[in-house]
């Protein structure tokens, strides 16, 4: 009964959010996803659109936010994958027992810290530091007619997000490396391969499905991170431009989830609310897709573990 209720609830959620979001999609067509204009002014126009439902203004082109979301999520997940594979290898093979005894609670702690604390530290410590010491005046002047560089930027968002998602990935990958049959890596070592090679070529390769699964989980987490990114990554809907060279990393960005948080006050204005629900619908689709991908990765993994034993 309860389970069926849960099912109905999920069904409701998807139907509700989509029906609420539909006008925004319908009025823009595919251009909804495209670039064009400044999202913040478009949002303001939607917010101020006339009260009669016929003359609602829905025009919005969310590309800058999609682009920022991809950049921040992608950057953080790629960075976190490297770091977490390396530190999982460290835990499994190289760390002396006392270091391991410190490292594992440390990782659990990092996983448990609420995102708002990461946001607070990022906003009060890292952002001012980047704004005052890392970005040069020359760099600030080079783009001053387009955007103000204040320190809250793409790179800070990526770094803080990486710290947030790495612990989850480390936990999964460490488990997977532990579950690789010992005889496999020992076989490699008996052939005269050193510990690093043995672990990298046998252990990590065998644990690949787990690494994919961990990355998928981390992506889902990163995609939904709203509060921290809205605090740290700069709250303007700007699409960082890779052509700006190094300055690219210092430009502000705002993900879709952060946009919902920033504009939550306007939810009660009908067309504005519908636009926000359209953002939510995009997030919902992506996370459902990610759960599917995670399921597929786990299927591959279970096949592997069955074969190994």
């Amino acid at each position, binding site marked *: 009964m*309860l389970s069926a209720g849960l099912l109905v609830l999920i069904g409701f959620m998807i139907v509700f959010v989509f029906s609420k979001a539909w006008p925004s999609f319908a009025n823009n067509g595919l251009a909804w996803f495209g670039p064009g204009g400044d999202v913040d002014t478009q949002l303001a126009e939607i917010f101020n659109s006339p009260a009669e439902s016929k003359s609602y203004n829905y025009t919005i082109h969310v590309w800058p936010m999609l682009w920022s979301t991809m950049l921040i999520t992608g950057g953080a997940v790629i960075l976190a994958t490297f770091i977490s594979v390396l530190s999982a290898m460290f835990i499994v093979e190289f760390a002396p027992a006392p270091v391991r005894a410190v490292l594992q609670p440390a990782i659990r702690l990092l996983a448990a810290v609420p995102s708002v604390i990461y946001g607070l530290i990022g906003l009060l410590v890292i952002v001012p530091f980047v704004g005052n010491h890392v970005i040069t005046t020359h760099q600030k002047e080079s783009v001053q007619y387009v955007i103000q560089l204040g320190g809250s930027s793409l790179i800070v968002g990526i770094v803080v997000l990486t710290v947030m998602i790495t612990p989850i990935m480390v936990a999964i990958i460490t488990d997977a490396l532990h579950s690789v049959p010992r005889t496999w890596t020992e076989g490699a070592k008996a052939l005269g391969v050193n510990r690093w090679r043995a672990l990298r070529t046998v252990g990590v390769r065998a644990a690949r499905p787990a690494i994919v699964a961990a990355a998928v989980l981390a992506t889902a987490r990163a995609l939904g991170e709203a509060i921290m990114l809205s605090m740290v990554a700069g709250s303007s809907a700007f699409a960082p431009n890779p052509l700006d060279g190094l300055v690219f990393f210092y430009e502000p960005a705002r993900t879709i989830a952060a946009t919902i948080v920033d504009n939550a006050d306007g939810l009660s204005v009908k067309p504005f609310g519908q636009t926000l629900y359209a953002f939510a619908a995009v997030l919902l689709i992506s996370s459902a897709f990610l759960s599917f991908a995670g399921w597929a990765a786990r299927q591959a993994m279970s096949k592997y573990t069955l074969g190994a034993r």
Partner: protein
Amino acid sequence: MSAQTLADRGQRLYTAIRGNESWSIGDRIGVGLAWLAGIGLCLIAAGILGYMLVRGVQYLNVSEVFSSPQPGLDQSETGGFLDPIQGTLIVTILGTAIAAPIGVATAVWLTEYGKPRGLARAVESAVEIVAGTPSIVLAIFGLLVFQQGIFSWFSVTGEGATPLGRSFIIAGSLMALIALPLIVGSTREALYSIPRHVREASYALGKDRASTIRRVLLPASRRGIGTGVVLGMGRIVGDTAIVFILLGATLQFEPEGAVPGWDVLKGTGSTLTTYVYQNSPAGEGGSPEKAYAAAFVLLMIVLVLNFGINLITRERQSMWGR
């Protein structure tokens, strides 16, 4: 062959093998990077903890913990964060109280009955989708649902008795949704780890399925359930988006209605997470000192919960002799 020659041979074989083991530059760099990543994570954790500790000790006054937030222009007038602490407690208790029975029931049904199979599969993926949905999406979905007229007795109402979809009850029930997957997951794991013969022994004693579950399986899996519940509590305590949307932006309790107790639940307020957010430069109140102090309290709560999980899971030697 004497022992001496045997040892000699062994030694030669060993050097033959070890001699082949070469550490190229790339390998050395790799090991170095692994060390760097591991130590780096340690340092980041230590840095965050140390920094929060310093700031917490620096800015936290005991009086803040026991006084309500007040509107005021100056730092000294804005009071403490008693209300947010109570708010965190209320939301956590509500969320866990809703999520725990549903989660345990779902897990038991999935592992012990699981029929019809199609429904079980669907429920499994539903739980997975809930786990993957960003909490901000859940939050605005909750807003959408509880703004419907029939739920008006749950929430704060605006002009003309239109429900605004904001109250502790609503925030608590959506929080239950984010705690649910964790509870389901760890309960299922605990149930799976109970060997089959335990169930069969219970059936052999003439117990039926329901009483086996109630008397044998649930007591045996209480550690797993406990872990799941505490994990869920940690999630609830740390969540900001749901509180931000569903509890409104008021820092004090704003009770609604006249029934004592219920009025608080039906009213709006804040939790520690939104308090931190609102007092940081990102929110409206620019008082980082208060934000640090509240964040310190929040971190302590999370650490205590973490410690609780350690306590629960530490003596997890198997009860079944494996």
